[in-house]
């Protein structure tokens, strides 16, 4: 029986905040393949193309036929739980603080024997389990053995919670709550159990439909936040950065221009000022406090979400300057991910295709609704993944990109 997570008690301000520690994060290059798939929420192992043998731990040549043709392939993770233990002692400082800690030894149906974290819902040995992968606090893929059937309070397993960014009992900031996407995210976070959602807004005289209703929700607190104004970001950070557990950056300027379709740089500048420099300002002011609170109890700081765009990965010429600004934001977010790592904060990038809003008005369907985007963000937080491609257009884009970026570039310019 997994005890449901209790509402965390108010923090005692006289006590020192527990500093973030990270589980061992060193990996060989081959092993990083596990992490790369885990970033997308997939459990993959290397499979030999010549003889079919599945490899674990990861390596560079097949342990059966010595072939170098190993490819990462998705796994079911089904297997037999051979043995379990509970660590009461660990040499590693991260685990030492968190014992007792359950581990399991699983013989996968696919062949290898694996050491995995053990979800407390798993039945005692001998039993069948399903091994999955999650990103741990170091941002590295680790194996977790799950029970075959859903058990009550699955998400509240303490080991699983160390690897996810569950909004429950946490406080979130949505940087622009006025847009359709922003409003949907505010509601979705509340629906996922967030205690408090700060809703950022700029240009208060610009009224957006639906915003007034948002203000009426009991979990909502409006905060002025203009990502083009360093002082605004600084002031709002001074007020709330020390309490934000999940930051969702929805602020963006989106114009439907390439290079020739709009003379002057003013429109492109406006996109960069919010999409790229806005992220930079936000990161400078909010990241330090969040990083320091990465291990601050059950409602610690846990995630930073950037709503980017598939156009960040490959330029869509009709929205060419927007694409470039999102590409700049993507690169910067990778820097942010590296800088947030010591705090164990997950940086999650969302790459939606066209959203069903005014700026994609002329694009044909399928388009992603704001509600669907918000749902994918919540799912990403609950699973603790790093890269999210919500919707059909985004999934297809990713598949085309992985197959051949140059081909995709040509397809987009036709």
């Amino acid at each position, binding site marked *: 029986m997994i005890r449901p997570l209790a509402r965390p008690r108010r923090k005692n301000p006289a006590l020192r905040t527990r500093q973030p520690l990270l589980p061992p994060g060193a990996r060989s290059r081959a092993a990083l393949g596990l992490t790369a798939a885990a970033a997308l929420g997939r459990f993959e192992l290397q499979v030999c193309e010549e003889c079919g043998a599945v490899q674990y731990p990861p390596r560079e040549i097949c342990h059966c036929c010595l072939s170098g043709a190993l490819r990462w392939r998705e796994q079911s993770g089904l297997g037999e739980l051979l043995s379990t233990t509970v660590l009461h002692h660990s040499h590693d400082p991260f685990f030492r603080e968190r014992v007792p800690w359950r581990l399991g030894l699983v013989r996968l149906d696919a062949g290898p024997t694996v050491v995995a974290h053990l979800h407390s819902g798993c039945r005692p040995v001998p039993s069948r389990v399903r091994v999955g992968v999650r990103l741990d606090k170091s941002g590295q893929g680790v194996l977790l053995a799950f029970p075959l059937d859903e058990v009550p309070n699955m998400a509240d397993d303490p080991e699983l919670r160390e690897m996810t960014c569950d909004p429950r009992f946490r406080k979130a900031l949505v940087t622009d709550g006025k847009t359709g996407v922003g409003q949907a995210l505010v509601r979705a976070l509340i629906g996922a159990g967030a205690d408090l959602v700060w809703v950022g807004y700029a*240009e*208060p*005289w*610009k*009224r957006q439909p639906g915003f007034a209703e948002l203000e009426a929700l009991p979990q909502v607190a409006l905060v002025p936040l*203009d990502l*083009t*104004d*360093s*002082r*605004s970001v600084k002031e709002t950070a001074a007020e709330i950065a020390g309490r934000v557990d999940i930051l969702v950056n929805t602020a963006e300027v989106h114009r439907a221009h390439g290079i020739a379709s709009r003379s*002057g740089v*003013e*429109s492109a500048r*406006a996109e960069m000022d919010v999409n790229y420099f806005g992220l930079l300002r936000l990161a400078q002011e909010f990241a330090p406090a969040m990083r320091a609170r990465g291990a601050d109890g059950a409602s610690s700081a846990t995630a930073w979400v950037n709503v980017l765009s598939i156009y960040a990965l490959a330029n869509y010429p009709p929205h060419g300057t927007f694409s470039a600004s999102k590409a700049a934001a993507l690169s910067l977010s990778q820097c942010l991910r590296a800088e947030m790592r010591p705090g164990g904060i997950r940086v999650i990038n969302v790459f939606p295709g066209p959203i069903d809003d*005014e700026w994609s008005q002329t694009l044909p369907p399928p388009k992603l609704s704001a509600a669907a985007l918000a749902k994918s963000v919540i799912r990403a937080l609950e699973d603790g993944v790093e890269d999210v491609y919500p919707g059909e257009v985004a999934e297809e884009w990713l598949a085309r990109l992985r197959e051949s970026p140059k081909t995709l570039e040509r397809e987009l310019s036709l």
Partner: protein
Amino acid sequence: MARSSLATLAAELASGAVRVIDLTQTLSPEFPQIMLPPEFGQCWPFRIEEVSRYDERGPAWYWNNFSCGEHTGTHFDAPIHWASGRDLPLNATDTVPVQHLIGAACVIDCSREAALDADFLLTVEHLERWESAHGPIPPRAWVLMRTDWSKRTDPVAYQNYDETGQHTPGPAADAVRFLIEERDVIGFGTESIGTDSGQGYHLTPPYPCHYYMHGAGRYGLQCLTNLDLLPPTGAVIFCAPLKIKGGSGSPIRALALVSHEGSKHG
């Protein structure tokens, strides 16, 4: 004699017999900025980025870089700003004759009307009523429409938007034509975010103050404040824009000189 007038002025400034009134809103990122429909180019709001503050970026000094549009905050509009004035000579901020930038101010008090109706339009009737109390508007004077709009310190109230757009007071088309054709004023100034009313798009012609004033080579002043400290006549205003090459306008430090006897009371 000009010289003795100036010497007297200097002495009176020093003694306080002549006071300087600041008609300028503070330039800060919070100050509302004019907003066009999203598909148009936008005028930058005021933004400021610290360069250093006695720190590793510059140990003994503090300074900033700022950015804004030509039409940010309390600012000056030159004739070149509007299509109707684009081909006139001496129509940019670097070419407007500086002689025009200091002049007598006539302050038309519309504060009561504006309080009752945010879309209040100043008409010829209002002007004629004002003149019957204070005398004719002299040629080459600045006409300033006092609405006390600057007392709306909440940016939302200052912008005063609803679903149909902005609602701020301004001059009617006939009043503008009267001021130019019948009174030969040098420029028109308001406390709100445009010289034209918030719903000026719907007048005929659209934005008549811009259209006629700039079309006649005259100027505009916006986002003025403290007009309630000026007498209806007798103040002298200074409103020089930055000397931007080919500039359509610029933020200014708008100042008014008011003599002690002529200063507003009550």
